[in-house]
């Protein structure tokens, strides 16, 4: 290490021992003096961590004997039966009361057909399609292709279920969403253009949802975008740390740098690739990350990025 270590690197050294810092210290009196401050901090922390005496009356209770345990279980089961019977009687009375009240209301108001829960219907349809797909994939000479279709089916099913957790959808809306999203998912596997994907995704939602529903979707997305971004940054830093062996202090700096440089994404853009995908697609982000690394680590970074690029190409080819 030709340059003087920073405070965070000295902290790393005090905590876990950093070979670069250890090699630098014998030749640099100034850094040795700084390192001593960090060592003193560690001594204080160890003193502060001195254990306190456990209360004198705290003694491990003997584990209950098995005979006692079985008697307790039997008593619990009996109690459970009695409670369940009581609860059932109570619930049944309430249900009958509720039904009577409902009937009374229905007589008062105009009767209307209540469709089965749209969420259940959507889930049921997805489940049937996935089951059918799995059966077909076993017979298929090219199972990878039919599994890709299954993945799309699951993704679309999940998207619709998510929407249903936010709002009521009619059967017609569900069908329109399913058709549109299936086409979009198929396209996005071969032509990954995030901006075009976003536009098409919005168009499908707008065609299928009412303006009020659309507003609700946007509100939810705004809430989740920040959370997703934090997760993406965490994943990226974790992968980078593993790939080029970053010490904790460097991980913190990397997190801040990626936070500044990573463009904000819309929720609609589903990340279907490696955490490192952002570095492959965004040369500016990649350069700003690389800039923070020492020449040795930058070399390791280049090699890792190249390997990731190849893996991604193979992955895309397989599809």
């Amino acid at each position, binding site marked *: 290490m030709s340059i003087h270590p920073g405070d965070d690197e000295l902290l790393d050294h005090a905590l876990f021992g950093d070979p670069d810092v250890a090699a630098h210290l014998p030749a640099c009196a100034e850094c040795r003096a700084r390192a001593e401050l960090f060592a003193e901090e560690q001594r204080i922390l160890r003193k502060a961590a001195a254990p306190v005496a456990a209360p004198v009356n705290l003694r*491990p209770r003997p584990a209950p004997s098995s005979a006692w345990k079985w008697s307790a279980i039997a008593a619990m089961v009996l109690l459970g039966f009695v409670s369940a019977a009581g609860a059932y009687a109570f619930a049944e009375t309430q249900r009958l009361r509720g039904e009577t009240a409902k009937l009374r209301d229905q007589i008062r108001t105009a009767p209307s057909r209540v469709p089965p829960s749209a969420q259940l219907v959507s889930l049921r349809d997805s489940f049937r399609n996935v089951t059918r797909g799995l059966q077909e994939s076993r017979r298929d000479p090219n199972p990878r292709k039919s599994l890709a279709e299954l993945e799309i089916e699951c993704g679309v099913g999940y998207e619709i279920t998510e929407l249903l957790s936010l709002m009521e959808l009619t059967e017609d809306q569900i069908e329109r969403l399913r058709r549109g999203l299936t086409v979009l998912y198929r396209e996005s596997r071969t032509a990954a253009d995030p901006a075009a994907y976003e536009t098409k995704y919005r168009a499908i939602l707008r065609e299928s949802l009412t303006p009020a529903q659309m507003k609700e979707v946007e509100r939810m997305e705004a809430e989740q975008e920040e959370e997703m971004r934090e997760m993406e940054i965490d994943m990226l830093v974790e992968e980078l740390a593993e790939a080029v062996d970053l010490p904790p202090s460097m991980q913190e700096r990397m997190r801040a740098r990626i936070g500044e440089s990573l463009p904000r994404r819309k929720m609609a853009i589903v990340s279907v690739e490696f955490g490192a995908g952002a570095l492959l697609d965004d040369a500016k982000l990649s350069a700003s990350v690389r800039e923070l690394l020492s020449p040795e680590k930058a070399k390791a970074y280049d090699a890792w990025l190249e390997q990731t690029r190849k893996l991604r190409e193979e992955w895309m080819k397989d599809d």
Partner: protein
Amino acid sequence: MDGFEVESPEVGRDPADVSRRFLPRVYNFCRAVLGSGVDAEDACQETFLAIARHRDELERVARLTPWVLTIARNACRYQRRRRNRASYTELPDDVPTSEGAPFGAADEVAKVRAAIERLPERYRAVLNLHYQQGLAPQEAAEVLEVSEGALRVLLHRAIVKLREEVRRP
């Protein structure tokens, strides 16, 4: 004594014996995580019962300390859920923003100890495992169910956050 002694390899595997010997460790860890002596006592008893229930596993584990403290960690979670509240006011669990200088002789140990008690739970837990229980990063990571890399970052953050707290007027 700063922290606990390193676990002796010739430790017997009788659950009652293990519970007795680990009582101070478990109590101090639970107290650090839960921030309350009373809750820590309950979590200790949960831990000892779980050790007795896992008698078979106890025979097989290579290193007892991380195993026992993992059980204690789960007991603390259970205890926390049961109480369904923080038993004291703790700082928001955010990432510290600036490094700050290390604290030194001018910062009394008692002041540092009080500042640790105000830290968020995961920071208290990692500081306890490192400085008091004397676990290696890999073992502490096992107890907290995180990767070793994440554990190192967590410890680094805990110290930076602690400096902020010690310096707070």
